[in-house]
Each structure stands twice: as C-alpha cells, then as structure tokens.
C-alpha cells in the first residue's frame, strides 16, 4: 500500500513536470503485430546492449598505447617478450583480471552475432518488401547501421595489436592507399604517418568505444522511433488491412516478451563465451610487421571483402597519369558499390515498378514478387560465394585440394552461382504461386460442394 502510494506520488510529480502520463499512456497502448521474424532486429538490438555493457567493462582495463614494453603478466609462454601495452593489457584482461576472459569472449561472440542478426534482419525487410514507401528513410538508417557495425567490429578486432589484428590493419592501410590520387594522403591522415606508427590503436580506441557506439546508439534510437511513428508493418491476414495494425499492446504483453528476449540474447552470449574460445590473442602472439601467419582471416562480416581480395584477378591500370592498383577493385570499388546499391535499392525498385504512388503497410510474401526475390537470392549467393573464397586456405588445409584449382573454381562460382540461384528462385516462386492458385480453386470447390 505504502509502495503504491509512493509510486503514485512519484508518477504524478513527473507528470506535472514532464507531461509523462500522456506519453506513457500512448506508448503503453501501442500495438505491435506479432510474428517471430519481427524479432530479428530486436536480437541485434539486444546484442548491442550486451556489447555496450561488456565493452564498458573491457574499456576500463584496455590500454591503447603502442610504445613497446616488456610483458610481465601471468601468461608464462610470453614472459619477457617485447609487446605493446595494447597487447599486454588484453593479455591482462584474459589472464589476470577476474572474469576478464569471460567478458572478453562474451563481447567478441556478441559482436559476431550482432552483425549476423543485422544481416538476417535486413534480409527479412528486403524479401517481404518492408522497405517500401513510407519506410525508405528507415531502410537508409538500417543500411547505415550495418556499415557502422562492420566498421565497429573491424576497429575492435584491430585493437589488441596481435598478429591477426596487425595483419588486418596492414590490409586496411594498403586498401586506403589504393584510392587514386588521395590514397597516400588518406592513409597518412588515418594512421598519422607510415604504417604501423604508434597512433592507430588510440585512434581506433576512441572510435570503437566512443564515436561509433554513440552514433550507432543515436541511429538505433531513430530507427526505433520511426517504427513507433510509422507503426510496424504486418503480414496480410484476417482483419488486417492497409489502414490498421493488429497485434499485442506494448504494455504488458509485448514488453514482457521483449524483456524476455533481452534475457535470452544475454544468456546465449554468455553460453557462447563460456563454451567456445574466441580470438586467442595469446596464441596469435604480439604483432610484428615482419611476421605473418596462414589461417589469418578477419571476423566473418569482413569475409566477403577478404574473399574479393583473394579471388579478384590482379588487375591494375593507368589512366590520365593516375595509377589504379589491383586492390582498388575488390577493396574500394566493391564495398562502395555494395553500399551504394543497398542505399539505392528502394528507390530503384520504385522507379522500376512505378509503385511510388501509395503507402504500403501490408507485407508481401517472397513468392509473390519473383523478380525481387530472385534478384535478392542472386545477390546473397554472390556475397556468400565471395565469403567462401575468403577461407580458401583453411579449406585447402582441411581437404588437401590444390589451391590453384580451388581459386579458379571459386572464381567461376562467384559468376555462375548467382545466375543459377536467380533462375532457380524465379522458377520456385512461380511454382509456389501456381500451387497457391490450385489450392485456392480446391478451396472454392469445397465451399460450393460441401460433401466433396
């Protein structure tokens, strides 16, 4: 009783000053349509929450300096080795900070799952046509978040100054240099001079723990506000029209489910961090610009770029006195075109189909849009093929195949498989549509002849 009275007084105090009651009432009554696939973005969101929480812990112990010191922590095999404070502090987190390794592993797994969830969320939006008017702006926000998530992940992967992160940065430096005319200046600007320098880790650190998360947090807030403002899309069904939203109210049903999902995501991340080792930097060893290792891969979300670098034939050209090095095509042009294409897609489709005239709140089934679905599957196949190319050395080491043959087969796959996927998907969509028509006819006959 006393508690209720206190809450009531507190609430009315807030209401008098902020007008909170009206906002809370409107918010709590908000209806969200129910479908499991509408929770994919929420998985990404809660992974982000886990990342911020675990990352805050890690940031307290990480030291981004690159001025060499002697390692004196408790990991014996590297005792007395010359390392950077960046590397040494990650070893300290792993071996000396209580629960440090668990948090580190949870953080890394959460990052891998975060980007995976974003990609699956994006595919759901794409294949159900949820990006159509009036939601083009939110599509742009989402694509930006994907790009930032990849950058954020790469920055985090690069921080510990181990052999793999240094190798990744070395690739990044060369790609930056490959930009015509301004490449060298750009690389000098970002790295503060010649590679590797002593600046890059602290710059990445600021970007990784402050600038990128702040921008992403703001964009995520905007992303969600737009969903609230425009109301969520829904699948067609009984009572569902272009003019209404049918589902559960935010309070209490939807909120309970959503909080439950937060716990589920956190639980899965902690389980991953406990059951599977990730990024054992103590075995990769401290970065040495003269050293390199096979089996050096980026985290999965950079795998398509790694594959592009490995599979693209070495093509360099000169024009107007400008040298365009061979890494420009796979390293700059491909990601540039990828994100340009992602940004432009809703507008290109509107222009192509002439469907810009009205708003769409009911989702489409992939089969009902064979052209879009086939195109999407072809594009996904293209990137998956590149992705597989990024691990060609691991594949060869596991199978004993000839690497030259493997590379050429993969090059062919990158070209051929998307075309095959496009053709197969279109046929499949048409077949499913035909099945629907047939099922509809049977249904109608049943209605007319009840005993049939």
């Amino acid at each position: 009783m006393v508690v209720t009275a206190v809450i009531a007084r507190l609430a009315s105090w807030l209401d008098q000053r902020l007008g909170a009651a009206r906002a809370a009432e409107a918010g709590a009554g908000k209806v969200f349509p129910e479908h499991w696939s509408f929770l994919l973005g929420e998985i990404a969101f809660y992974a982000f929450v886990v990342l911020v929480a675990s990352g805050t812990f890690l940031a307290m112990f990480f030291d981004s300096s690159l001025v060499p010191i002697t390692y004196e922590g408790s990991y014996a095999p590297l005792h007395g080795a010359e390392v950077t404070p960046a590397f040494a502090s990650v070893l300290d987190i792993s071996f000396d900070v209580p629960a440090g390794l668990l948090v580190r592993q949870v953080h890394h797994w959460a990052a891998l799952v975060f980007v995976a969830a974003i990609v699956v969320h994006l595919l759901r939006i794409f294949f159900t046509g949820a990006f159509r008017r009036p939601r083009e702006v939110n599509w742009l926000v989402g694509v930006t978040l994907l790009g930032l998530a990849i950058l954020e992940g790469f920055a985090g992967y690069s921080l510990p100054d181990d052999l793999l992160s240094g190798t990744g940065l070395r690739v990044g430096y060369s790609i930056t240099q490959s930009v015509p005319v301004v490449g060298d200046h750009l690389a000098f600007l970002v790295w503060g001079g010649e590679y590797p320098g002593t600046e890059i880790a602290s710059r990445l650190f600021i970007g990784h723990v402050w600038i990128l998360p702040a921008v992403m947090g703001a964009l995520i807030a905007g992303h969600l506000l737009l969903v609230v403002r425009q109301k969520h899309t829904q699948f067609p069904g009984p009572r569902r029209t272009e003019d209404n939203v049918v589902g559960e109210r935010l309070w209490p049903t939807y909120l309970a489910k959503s909080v439950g999902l937060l716990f589920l995501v956190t639980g899965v991340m902690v389980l991953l961090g406990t059951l599977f080792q990730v990024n054992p930097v103590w075995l990769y060893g401290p970065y040495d610009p003269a050293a390199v290792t096979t089996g050096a891969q980026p985290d999965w979300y950079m795998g398509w770029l790694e594959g592009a670098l490995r599979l693209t034939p070495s093509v360099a050209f000169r024009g107007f006195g400008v040298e365009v090095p061979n890494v420009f095509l796979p390293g700059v042009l491909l990601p540039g075109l990828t994100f340009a294409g992602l940004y432009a897609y809703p507008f290109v489709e509107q222009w192509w189909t002439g469907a810009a005239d009205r708003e769409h709140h009911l989702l489409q089934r992939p089969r009902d849009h064979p052209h879009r679905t086939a195109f999407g599957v072809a594009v996904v196949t293209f990137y998956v093929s590149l992705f597989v190319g990024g691990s060609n050395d691991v594949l060869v080491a596991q199978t004993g195949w000839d690497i030259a043959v493997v590379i050429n087969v993969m090059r062919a796959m990158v070209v051929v498989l998307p075309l095959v996927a496009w053709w197969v998907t279109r046929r499949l969509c048409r077949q499913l549509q035909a099945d629907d028509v047939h099922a509809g006819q049977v249904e109608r006959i049943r209605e007319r002849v009840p005993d049939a």
Partner: protein
Amino acid sequence: MRQPHIRDRGGRWARALVCWVLFAATVVGAWGMLGRPAGARQEAGTSARAGEFLWQRDCASCHGVAGQGTRWAPDLTGQGAAGVSLAITSGRMPLPADAVGRDDPPARERQVPRGPVVYTPEEVDALVAHAGRILSGPEVPHVDLSTADRSAGASLFQLNCAACHTWSGRGGALTSGQVAVSLVDATPVEVVEAMRTGPGTMPVFDEATLDERQATDVTAYVEYLDRPRTPLGHPLWFIGPVAEGMVAWVVGLVALLLLVRWIGARTPAPGSGSEDHRG
C-alpha cells in the same frame, strides 16, 4: 539360409569354402609381408653391417646405394643423418611397397604423411649411423629443452614458422596440393631435424639463420603448442576466425532464431489481438 543346406550336402561346400578362405588368407598374408619392410622381423643388431644391410634392403632400391637418388626418389645428398632420422622416426619412410614406383604423381614429388615406425630403436640407430657415413649433411641434433627460452621461441616461431605452419602449428595449405604439416606429433628432435634439413618444400634453417640456442627456443614453443593454454571454452581446433564465424552463425544465431520462433507467433491468429488505426 545357405548354412543348413551346406551341412546337408555332406560338407562338400564347406570343404570348398575352407579351401577358399585358406587361399585368401595366404594371398592377403603374402601381400602384407611384401607390402611392409621386413625390418621388424629381422634380428639386425647395432653393428655397422646391420645399418648397411637395412639401407641396402629398404632404402637403396629407390634412393640409390650412396643415396644419390633415382628416377623414383630424391637425392639425399646434404640430408645427412638428421634427414634420414627424421624420415624414419616419423614413419614417413620407408614407403609401403605398393606406393613405390607408382608414377602419378611421381613418387619423388609426392608428400608422404606420417605413419607407424617400422624399425626397432636399435635398427633406427644402425640405419641413421650408416646414413651419417654415406651422406653429407647435419648430424642428428641433441635437443635439451630444460634451459630453453619459450617466449624468445614464440617470437621466432611467428617470424619463421607461422607463415606456413599457421600460428597454432596445426599446419597450413601450400601450393600444388602440398601442405605444411601439423607440428603436434613432431618430437623435439624431429623439429630441429626438419629445420636443419628442410624436408620437401620447407626451406633449410641452418645455424646461420637459427643458431642452436634459437632452434631450441623455437622447439620449446612448438612443444608448448601441442597443448597450449585454453583457459575457457572449446578451442575450436585452433582454426581461428573461420571456425568462430561458423559457430556464431550455426550455434549462436540459429539458437536465437529457434528462441524467437518459440516466443514469437508463426501464423496470424484469426480474430485475436488488439487493433490500432494508422494515423
């Protein structure tokens, strides 16, 4: 179904069957004896004669009496006792008889995997001693890891070995279907022998590149990599980010997809749910 029938026919079929089984066993047995070197069956002793005998019997037919190499097998000049010791203590040599002389790809270009050692320790000593007498090249090294500096070894491993054997020493891909072998099963002596003799496509790391102390340090780190520290969770076979990406998708994301399918609706429930109008 046939068993009672055979018994009924007075054992004629049974006798035939026994004959066939005996014949098959003879063939398989003979094949097996021909197929593996006779070393294990012979009492060879430790004398120089024994080493020469084993060399003539198991090595000379392919590598030549003086180890000069033939059309089927490489020249062993410069490999010394260390090279021969590495080949036989890792069970790579001698090749099984049926693998010799097969020309696709030519035996001399094929990479031979580790196998069971076919000689007794005395025979190994005799053979290696004989190899030391007829071949130029490094002696079998004496490796004492008790005073080795593992962290110096780690850095040398990273610089000289990881580029092919990978950071974990689990082996990696080379060109033409060859691999840099996994170092997990290699003994300390084998590791140093490999550095000094450069088997297959591996370069030679001689005293000028890695002195005795450095070679010992590297070996200490290689030994550590057999069972490196994995404080928390399954090490995913030391494959690295490729395996991690697979786990993130196949375990992490799939688990979450199953969970959201469990808590989320699958088909619109007709008639239920609240309704809002779009503004």
